[in-house]
């Protein structure tokens, strides 16, 4: 598939902001996040619930905003084209053709009263100009591709007649139908049985590689991102707090929050009945952000400066972290 025309990143995000006006004031769900994504690579966006990862990605593709009173800011470029400057019609065109999205719960992300074949073919008819017969044929091919047995029969069924894993495969078929350049998977396995999760992740990864798509994999589980993402961006309270390659993250996180996330992963090498480590405290109230680092109240390494001043994401040899006392340095807490 085609990469970025200019050789630059496929997706470039600068200072993305999303705010919601609430009765308690402006809630900054996403607060100045920037990142680049190269064609063919996978970015894992990791954070706990409410960290702003889903809102961030949905706002990039215009799925947050209308009707919700959201205030969206920042610059988003896909293939060098400024998405925020597009007319509604050209934006929809681009969204349908170049970006595919898989949501968390395939129970609710498929239309319950529309046949599966039609749901897959819909985008093809709209964005690729296929007639309904051709779209129906292609829908069956896509069902084969995502590993659904008896594709002809399945195409004429409704979502409730399929299992959760099958439904998520259908959702993936819908997402890749128009050969997008960017695939967004928003917690694609969270609502599924553990036994099916791996299959779905494998399927996503295979499709991404075969088609040379870039992928954003949103997850609250570093373990999911581990084998699948090339790079990882850790989000906390609406901000990116660490950004590095997956290998670097797992080898030695710099931001204490990332370390805490890693510690809360269960390990096979742990002795049985080891208590899972949990992060104490709660994420901050995004409508009442105080001064200082948002993670400071829960951080074991905090210093006086952390409570007075907000750390910005600083870059050090390709990796970035927002911390005054980063791990793995003499000034910090040590590794």
């Amino acid at each position, binding site marked *: 598939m085609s990469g970025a025309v200019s050789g630059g990143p496929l997706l470039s995000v600068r200072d993305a902001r999303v705010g919601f006006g609430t009765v308690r004031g402006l809630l900054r769900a996403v607060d100045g996040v920037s990142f680049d994504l190269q064609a063919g690579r996978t970015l894992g966006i990791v954070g706990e619930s409410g960290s702003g990862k889903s809102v961030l990605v*949905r706002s990039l*593709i*215009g*799925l947050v905003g209308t*009707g919700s009173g959201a205030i969206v800011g920042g610059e988003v470029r896909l293939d060098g084209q400024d998405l925020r400057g597009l007319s509604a*019609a050209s934006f*929809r*065109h*681009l*969204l*349908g*053709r170049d*970006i*595919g*999205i898989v*949501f*968390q*719960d395939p129970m*609710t*992300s*498929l*239309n*319950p*009263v*529309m046949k599966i074949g039609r749901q897959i073919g*819909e*985008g093809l008819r*709209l*964005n690729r100009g296929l007639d309904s017969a051709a779209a129906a044929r292609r829908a069956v091919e896509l069902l084969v591709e995502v590993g659904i047995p008896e594709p002809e029969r399945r195409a004429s069924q*409704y979502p*409730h*007649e399929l299992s959760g894993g099958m439904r998520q495969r259908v*959702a993936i078929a*819908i997402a890749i139908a128009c050969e997008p350049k960017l695939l967004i998977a928003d917690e694609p396995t969270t609502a599924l049985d553990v036994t099916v999760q791996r299959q779905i992740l494998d399927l996503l990864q295979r499709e991404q590689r075969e088609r040379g798509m870039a992928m954003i994999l949103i997850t609250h589980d570093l373990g999911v991102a581990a084998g699948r993402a090339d790079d990882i961006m850790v989000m906390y309270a609406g901000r990116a707090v660490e950004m590095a390659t997956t290998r670097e993250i797992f080898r030695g996180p710099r931001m204490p929050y990332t370390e805490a996330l890693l510690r809360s992963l269960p390990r096979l090498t742990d002795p049985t009945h080891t208590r899972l480590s949990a992060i104490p405290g709660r994420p901050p109230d995004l409508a009442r952000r105080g001064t200082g680092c948002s993670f400071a109240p829960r951080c074991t390494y905090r210093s006086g400066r952390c409570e007075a001043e907000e750390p910005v994401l600083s870059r050090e040899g390709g990796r970035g972290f927002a911390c005054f006392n980063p791990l793995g340095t003499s000034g910090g807490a040590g590794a």
Partner: protein
Amino acid sequence: MHWLARQALRLIVVLFCVTLLTFLIVNILPGDVATAILGGLATPEDLAGLRADLGLDRPMLVRYFDWLGSALSGDLGRSHRSGEPVAQAIADRLPVSLQLMVMAQVIALGVAVPAALLSVRRPGGLFDRLSASAAFGFLATPSFMLGILLIYLFSVTLDLLPATGFSPMSEGLWANFESMILPALSLGLIEWTVLMRVLRSDLLTTLKEDFILLARAKGLPPWRVLLQHALRPSSFTLITVVGLNIGGLIGGAVIVEQIFALPGVGRLLLGGIFNRDLILVQGTVSFIAAGFVLVNFLVDMLYAVLDPRVRHVRFRS
């Protein structure tokens, strides 16, 4: 098909209860058909004789089962007053009432669905607020009031349409339409309000679903998202209310037929009540009740057409 059998059984039980209850109510109505026919100066002997001729001297339950037996074979008895078979009297007037209600329903849905779709495009926006105000205004207006206002506007002031009277379709479709449009509007313009509010609120719920986001992510323009993805899954409450509102519509039709002098079933019923024509009232009310129950039965069937999940549960063998 198990489900269908259960529904049919329920239908029978409901109809039995409704006819019995109607019979009881009609029979405790004050007044007496014999007095109504013979006038206030008739002797008690004459009155008793007439009652015996009409079979009214027998116990009530005997009369009910007698009536029910004939009713099951399609014979609803003869009007005490005119001697006309009740079934025939209803059949003669039914087309008028049916046309009135179908037109009213078409008007109601024709206003409610587009209004709901337009208001959810921008909830709290100008159209949403205007249509909400209009809905509550119409909702607070009784249909007879609206009928009189419509007559005043279209017949008296603008002289566009006939104020009262009925032209059958044999006198031409347009003449028929002209005589029916105002009555249908008096019912439909009130009916749409509830339908619109119900559909609007279900649409707003549906629009928060992930599959709507997915439809938008496919690049579908907003109106296609609304029509192709949101409308059908949002229409179940609407369908239910349409079915239940048939009752209100029939009640409204009785009054509206009176105002516009339409020879419908409602007017037949009202005449029967004034004349204490018990057998006519019994026949008409039972017929209307059966119609109401049947329509709601059909509405129930319609869910299965609209929602494959219902089909799945109901027709699993």
